[in-house]
């Protein structure tokens, strides 16, 4: 079915003959998230080709990593996907811990899980909200963004920062869950669900919303895998793959949750996958919190690690499931206190390179919808 829709999209698109208008969208444009730029060739409103140009936010994060010690690099990871900085932090911490060969105490693992799932909810809320805004529905955005603020409040209580969290440290987390979390979470769980319900009511079965999203940039699973898609984008194409299930890390193998998957890989499926994933994240937090409650109060939070980390020589790759997909850190150590080479595998990088294939033959409005549904974050893309 997905293939069918895709071929229809391509065959209805005109061929590359004739006079076309070059329309430059971005890097400064209200619908471009961050500093993205797409150079499109259009025939009227139909897109003949769309070439993304990236690098406007390139800050040389990998070069910086080679010149900073292992602990100093942690705050830099905040600036990758700034919508869910905690996932980047934890991914990096876990990669270094793998290199050092240390196991983090269970309490720290649970706190990491709770915080990461909260970050995932926040990230998805922003993505779905912005998708709505780009399609002209502004109201759900506010319902969702209010919930994100609540989540940020918890982050602030726990480690003092709202957006660029720099949570935890190599070897564990510094702080226990804040006291206020225990009373806040039951209330917040309901309010998150309510905001999602409201959004669902406003959008999901709205005829205009369905017209705008169903069948738009449909993508089949095989192509998606070949292009290196991961995360919600891949699951929307019907491939049930989630690193939390496939390569369990932390204590994800001890919690029970489903992987929502779509069928056609269109904008609607991506939206639905994200909406359903928020529900699953709430479920995971509940279970992780129950496990946390069973641990003694004075359980250790940090594994003892030396002040200056000198991991043994070697190279490792460790990936986690960030809200956008597989976020991996490749680290080569030469035995010194600085990594010899750090390579970040940003999930939206792989997705965005298929952009031309995704939007070819569709209309300018669909390009905007597609871009929002990909959730491309410039900080993560350009590094």
């Amino acid at each position: 079915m997905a293939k069918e829709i895709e071929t229809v999209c391509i065959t209805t698109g005109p061929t590359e003959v004739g006079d076309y208008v070059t329309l430059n969208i971005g890097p400064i444009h209200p619908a471009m998230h961050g500093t993205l730029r797409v150079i499109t060739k259009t025939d009227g409103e139909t897109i003949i080709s769309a070439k993304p140009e990236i690098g406007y936010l390139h800050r040389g994060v990998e070069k910086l990593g080679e010149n900073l010690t292992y602990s100093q690099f942690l705050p830099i990871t905040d600036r990758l996907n700034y919508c869910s900085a905690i996932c980047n932090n934890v991914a990096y911490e876990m990669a270094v811990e793998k290199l050092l060969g240390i196991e983090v105490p269970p309490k720290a693992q649970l706190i990491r899980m709770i915080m990461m799932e909260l970050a995932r909810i926040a990230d998805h809320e922003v993505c779905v909200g912005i998708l709505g805004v780009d399609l002209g529905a502004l109201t759900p955005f506010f319902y969702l963004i209010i919930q994100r603020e609540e989540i940020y409040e918890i982050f602030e209580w726990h480690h003092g920062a709202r957006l660029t969290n720099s949570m935890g440290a190599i070897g564990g987390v510094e702080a226990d869950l804040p006291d206020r979390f225990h009373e806040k979470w039951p209330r917040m769980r309901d309010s998150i669900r309510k905001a999602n319900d409201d959004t669902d009511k406003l959008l999901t079965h709205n005829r205009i919303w369905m017209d705008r999203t169903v069948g738009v940039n449909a993508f089949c699973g095989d192509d998606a895998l070949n292009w290196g898609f991961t995360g919600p984008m891949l699951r929307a194409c019907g491939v049930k793959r989630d690193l939390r299930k496939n390569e369990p890390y932390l204590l994800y193998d001890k919690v029970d949750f489903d992987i929502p998957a779509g069928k056609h890989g269109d904008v609607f499926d991506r939206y639905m996958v994200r909406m359903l994933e928020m529900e699953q994240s709430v479920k995971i937090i509940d279970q992780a919190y129950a496990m946390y409650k069973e641990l003694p109060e004075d359980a250790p939070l940090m594994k003892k690690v030396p002040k200056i980390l000198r991991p043994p020589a070697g190279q490792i790759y460790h990936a986690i499931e960030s809200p956008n997909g597989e976020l991996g850190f490749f680290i080569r150590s030469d035995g010194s206190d600085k990594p010899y080479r750090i390579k970040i595998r940003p999930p939206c990088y792989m997705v965005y390179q298929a952009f031309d294939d995704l939007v070819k033959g569709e209309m300018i409005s669909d390009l905007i919808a597609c871009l929002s549904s990909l959730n491309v974050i410039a900080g993560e893309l350009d590094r």
Partner: protein
Amino acid sequence: MADWQIELIKVVFIWAWALIIAVVMTWVERRASAMMQDRLGPNRAGPFGLLQPLADGIKLFTKEDIIPERARKILFVLGPPLFALPAFSAYAVIPFGDKIVIGGKEIILQVSDVNIGFLFILALSAIAVYGLVIGGWASNSKYSILGGLRATAQLISYEVPMGLALLTIVLLDGTFSLREIVLQQQGTFLGFLPNWGFFKQPLGFIIFLVAAYAEANRVPFDLPECESELVTGYHTEYGSMRLGLYLFGEYVNLVTLSAITVCLFFGGWSLPYVDMSKFLGPVSYGIASFFVFFFKQAFFLFLFVWVRWTVPRFRYDQLMGLGWKALIPLGLVNLFITALLVQLTT
């Protein structure tokens, strides 16, 4: 008072009144949307932020007036007034109340009762398209020209179903004068319903309302602007009060369109089942009819706001599809049935 003085007062009054509604409308839009979105909205300038439109006006007037270097200067300057003025002018033929007796003189609450008021409104709304197209063309920007082209196609396409819906009313009432149409809507229909166009022409009303939203460039039909795709469409390059005129013209358009809706489908100034003129004095009756009209109009203004903050936006081809494949055939069928019924019953 001489007749021309009365006419002048009426013109100034209705011009100021439409202006005030439009200004307050910008405030209502923000406060209402804020209410819907769990926000507060502007609440700093004056009580409840009521002076916010004034602050905006001052801001727009004092901003630097920039004309892009490669823009077509004359057309660029001509665009905004060409869009805003027809919206104002259309208000001239709208009966905003019945009549009032002051000093023994009977004054009709309408600037001029043109016997082709209907066509006048349609013609003016066709002229307003030029404001958008000229603005988009003169800016010399790709986003603007796309917006301008979208505006042309959209407004012209939706004028057809709108005209078809209005024709049914003309068929039923046998007149082009708006005042006559309002007068014919008094009394009851089928014995128990108010004799409103809405009950006689429900399908025509729906077609008209959808077309009106498209004519007003509002969500879900705000494609000529479409902030997330075309930056802001035809007025991307505009700034200061030229931009203000475009934005303001849009609100005046809303005021006019909701007034037309009330006139044609909701009995204008008359109340259902009650004849106000029987128990009210000549002066108070005039004032009462004016306010009845205003409250009906306010409801439709609020409906515009309500819809805007609820639904997403159409895509361009879907918009055209809705216009040509759904509304126009429906309008034709509706017109045919109405004509048949009118022929059979008279």
